């Protein structure tokens, strides 16, 4: 899997997709959606789709793309290679969402939470397959958040397609399990080859599974925290695990809007102007308009 685009810039999102098998343009296809890396506090989250003609679902199953959770990393990689070889009837695409994109979305002034980011990414990938001319007739998606609203939203967005949103979809539908394998292979590769923007000397990359409850990951985070900058962008700053370490170990930073909330309302009398003699003569508007005042000390 060629993640060189992610290597160039791992602060946003990047999309990879296989060529579209000609068969998938002609025959009605089933498409599965799944993600990898939703829970970890480190690294990217990957959304993937996998599709093949409904008539060939048996062949896809024959690839033994059983429930991807039961497969080891190397088995997933081997299966992915097999799917690549069968690219005359299997296609895939994926979006790698960087930890920076996740953090800045969730912590932005206008909150864009993980569920919305996930839903939009899944819908974006389905749209991508349609735009590439894949004849999608059925879509199977693993649930993220409440299944009904998700199902309705996707059905509204893609009226001509039969949408099924179900828990544990990757154990029920081979296309979802295949999508899950694509997502996991991409995430594993991305994490393994993560290029740290920050030139951290003696960086130990033994950060465990990346899951918040993994002691190794927690230890790594504690070692990495920097009082002013927090963490490398490999870390999802919006994760509770990361935030609690920042609250303990990092500098308090005061933003303009964070203070307004704290400042109580002024008493009404404070709006009445003081007696003219008490009020110091204001600097000329040339300076006021530019935020300039005489320096009284350094």
């Amino acid at each position, binding site marked *: 899997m060629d993640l060189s685009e992610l290597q160039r810039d791992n602060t946003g999102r990047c999309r990879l997709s296989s060529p579209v098998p000609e068969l998938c343009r002609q025959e009605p296809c089933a498409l599965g959606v799944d993600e990898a890396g939703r829970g970890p506090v480190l690294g990217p989250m990957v959304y993937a789709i996998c599709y093949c003609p409904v008539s060939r679902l048996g062949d896809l199953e024959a690839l033994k793309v059983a429930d991807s959770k039961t497969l080891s990393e190397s088995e997933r990689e081997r299966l992915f290679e097999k799917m690549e070889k069968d690219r005359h009837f299997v296609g895939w695409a994926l979006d790698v969402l960087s930890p920076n994109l996740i953090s800045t979305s969730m912590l932005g002034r206008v909150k864009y939470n993980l569920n919305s980011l996930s839903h939009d990414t899944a819908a974006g990938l389905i749209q991508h397959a349609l735009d590439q001319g894949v004849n999608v007739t059925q879509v199977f998606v693993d649930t993220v958040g409440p299944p009904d609203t998700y199902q309705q939203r996707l059905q509204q967005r893609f009226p001509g397609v039969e949408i099924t949103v179900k828990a544990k979809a990757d154990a029920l539908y081979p296309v979802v399990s295949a999508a899950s394998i694509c997502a996991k292979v991409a995430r594993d590769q991305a994490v393994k080859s993560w290029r740290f923007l920050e030139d951290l000397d003696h960086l130990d990359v033994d950060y465990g599974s990346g899951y918040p409850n993994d002691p190794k990951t927690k230890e790594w985070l504690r070692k990495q925290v920097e009082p002013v900058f927090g963490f490398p962008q490999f870390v999802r700053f919006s994760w509770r695990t990361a935030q609690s370490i920042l609250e303990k170990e990092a500098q308090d930073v005061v933003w303009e809007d964070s203070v307004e909330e704290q400042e109580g309302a002024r008493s009404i009398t404070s709006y009445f102007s003081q007696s003219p003699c008490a009020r110091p*003569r204001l600097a*000329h508007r*040339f300076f006021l308009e530019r935020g*300039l005042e005489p320096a009284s000390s350094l």
Partner: protein
Amino acid sequence: ARQHVFLLPEYLKDTSKKMKSGLMFVKLVNPCSGEGTLYLFDMCLLQLFEVKVFKEKHHSWFINQSVQSGGLLHFATPMDPLFLLLHYLIKADKEGTFQPLDQVVMDDMFPNCNLLLKLPELEKLLQHVTEEKEINNKKYYKYSKEKTLMWLEKKVNQTMTALKTNNINVSARVQSSAFFSGNQASSDKEEDYICYAHGLISDYIPKELSDDLSKH
């Protein structure tokens, strides 16, 4: 240690190389408010700079490999020292007599005011704002309001020219400079420029003199 970020005229860079304490921060009187204000004195060129600070809450600096809270930005710009000398001449005028300059420019609050006595061409400067007498080769000075108003009038005219060339928005109504039409000068009346320039100069002279200047 605290670090500061300064915008200075380029030529001051050599000064701090030429002389160890080439550039000195001194507290001197603010000729408008009478309070203490920070100035920068170039001991090589014997030139006075006023120091203004851009201050906005919740700012910080990254300076090389450090972070500095406050985010203040200081500007040092040349200032006509006669505004400071004027402050002392007006103060001494209450005695109504001619006095030697070193007895006029004295200030327990701001002892560094004696730096003003080192200024080159001091006598030429003083001619703009004083009457002088010479007895036994010693010069004595007395504040002259008439001459000062003439000098300030020149200052106002110079400022008006500068406001026009720099397209400064002087109109009384509040207007965002982003929506300015090109031909700024025409839309602003000459009087707006005079008022604006008078106001700007008044930031450097006592209130009473500002009122006199306004009548003048």
